[in-house]
């Protein structure tokens, strides 16, 4: 393998790793705090990409506005989802709430299929061209996506240090005791849902100029996000970040050698991690039902 190809694969892997990091941390946040297995996460990502596409192509607005629009739309959709459906289902337990999110995901993907059809949506790259260092070329847009993903993750880290972030972590640790300390669990829930869905919205908005958006893009990324969650340890945010980049790189390199079977390589990698480090890479995850 020559150096150019190596760096190409590395950049691709880091880029998809950034996507996985955002989706998986949103997922793990919702799982840890609300104890809901949110299967609609991939659909929020897809809607984020489509929202960006709609704002840019339909309303003719610049890209930063489109990102903000997509994030706000996903956060509001998450809050609506919580208040209209999840609020009533959470008390029935893990299995019921997971099935409800699956049903919601079906509704979202099927109605977007009816609305948008199978045609992929293209928006032109925001930073066209590439940097060349010797024989190695870096696509500017992909590097931009990686940098943005890192900025978002750092922002999330500092968000978890604020008052509401601490309340979320306390609620994840022990809901009843957190309630006794005066933490309003209802407020924590909808904020968690909004943050988790907004992270997916950002991921969708960032990826939209790089790849073409289609209706099925959410399902494929969701399975990768699941492997990330398991490798990083369920409920562990820093573990999810490291695991996301690892999985992205493994997947990208595996694609070069075995093509569509790269999921098998990721699965074997995941199996090894689960076997040797059951608690994830960093060991001490948040309490999750069933463990």
């Amino acid at each position, binding site marked *: 393998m020559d150096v150019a190809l190596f760096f190409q694969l590395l950049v691709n892997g880091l880029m998809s790793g950034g996507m996985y990091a955002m989706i998986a941390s949103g997922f793990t946040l919702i799982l840890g705090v609300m104890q809901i297995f949110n299967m609609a996460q991939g659909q929020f990502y897809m809607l984020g990409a489509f929202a960006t596409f709609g704002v840019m192509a339909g309303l003719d607005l610049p890209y930063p506005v489109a990102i903000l629009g997509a994030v706000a739309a996903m956060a509001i959709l998450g809050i609506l989802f919580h208040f209209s459906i999840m609020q009533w289902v959470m008390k029935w337990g893990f299995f*019921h709430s997971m099935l409800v999110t699956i049903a919601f995901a079906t509704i979202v993907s099927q109605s977007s299929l009816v609305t948008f059809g199978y045609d992929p949506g293209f928006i032109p790259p925001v930073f066209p061209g590439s940097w060349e260092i010797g024989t190695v070329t870096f696509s500017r847009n992909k590097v931009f996506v990686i940098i943005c993903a890192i900025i978002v993750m750092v922002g999330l880290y500092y968000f978890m240090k604020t008052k509401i972030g601490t309340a979320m972590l306390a609620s994840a640790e022990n809901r009843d005791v957190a309630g006794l300390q005066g933490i309003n669990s209802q407020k924590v829930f909808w904020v968690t849902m909004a943050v988790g869905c907004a992270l997916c919205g950002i991921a969708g908005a960032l990826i939209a100029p790089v790849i073409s958006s289609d209706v099925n893009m959410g399902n494929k990324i969701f399975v990768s996000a*699941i492997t990330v969650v398991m490798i990083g340890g369920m409920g562990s945010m820093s573990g999810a970040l490291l695991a996301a980049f690892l999985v992205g790189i493994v997947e990208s390199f595996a694609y070069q050698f075995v093509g569509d079977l790269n999921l098998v390589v990721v699965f074997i990698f995941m199996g090894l991690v689960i076997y040797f480090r059951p608690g994830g890479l960093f060991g001490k995850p948040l309490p999750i039902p069933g463990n």
Partner: protein
Amino acid sequence: MSKLTKIVALCVLAALLLSLPSFLNPYVTQIVITTITYAMLGLTFAMGLKVGLLRFDVAAWWAVGAYGTALLITKAGWSFWPAALVAGIIAVALGYLVCMLSIPRGMMVFFLVGMVLTMVFYQVFGSLKFFGSWGGISGIPRVTIGSFEFAHKPELYYMGLALLVVILVVYYLLYNSKIGTAWNAIGSSLKLANSVGVDVVKYRTANILIGNFFLALVGAYYISYSGVAAPQTFSFNNSVFVMMYVIVGGINHSLIGPLLGSLIITFIPEYLRAAQEYEPIIRSVFIILIIIFLPNGILGLFDKYINPWFQRSKYCAPFRARVPAESRATEINV
């Protein structure tokens, strides 16, 4: 219920089920066959639920059964029956490897591994030439016993019914045996079961492996009537459908719930054929409403309203069954 009424009721039910194909047209018979297939998958899912494990890998082992049988028939030239049996054993052996990895790590890891496994099998069967890639393996000959051929819908219906009865009887006996008691203990409280000396990992593994064997048999049955094993049939969505059948039927009833749920959910969309594109949306809304208003499924309604009345009314005294133990909590204790 007295013994006589039980026997009479069973005879009436059997006569009804056996005479069903004679007054149904082939199209409806095909739907009934699909219902039976899904009911069998749902029964196995409900068995996993008894030990507090959510099986997302139902479609994966179903696919292993179907592909194993199809490969042994078309490539190795075996006949159907030994091929189906060997496919079942393959599913158990592969399942043991996965169980060794995931079951000691708890329910959540088992569930997620099952989910990724379904995706992995789908991808492997789809992209490898050995498994016929995305077109699948077709040209599977009809199943025969001696000179008798399962060629038409009614015969295939009887074959499915026989398999369903076998699964029901085996699961019923298991639930009422010592193993079933241990499973119930694990399902009601994992920690308590552990503390009184039930080997949780062993019993959970046994549950999953028995389930795997029957899932593979259902896969063999599936290719006997469809004649083709294609990866699209065994996608992610099918595992989801199975869960929905179980929850609509009622998760506290491991034997009747999946039957009722699959009957309801397969037949309702048949009347919504006109709106093909909107059918998944309508079904999902239906599921959400069911879960919000009837978390224990349709049989939960029966438990709540009809059964107490049945127990109280003096007219029903001759038909009265033993008072069921307090039904399990709606939340699965894991």
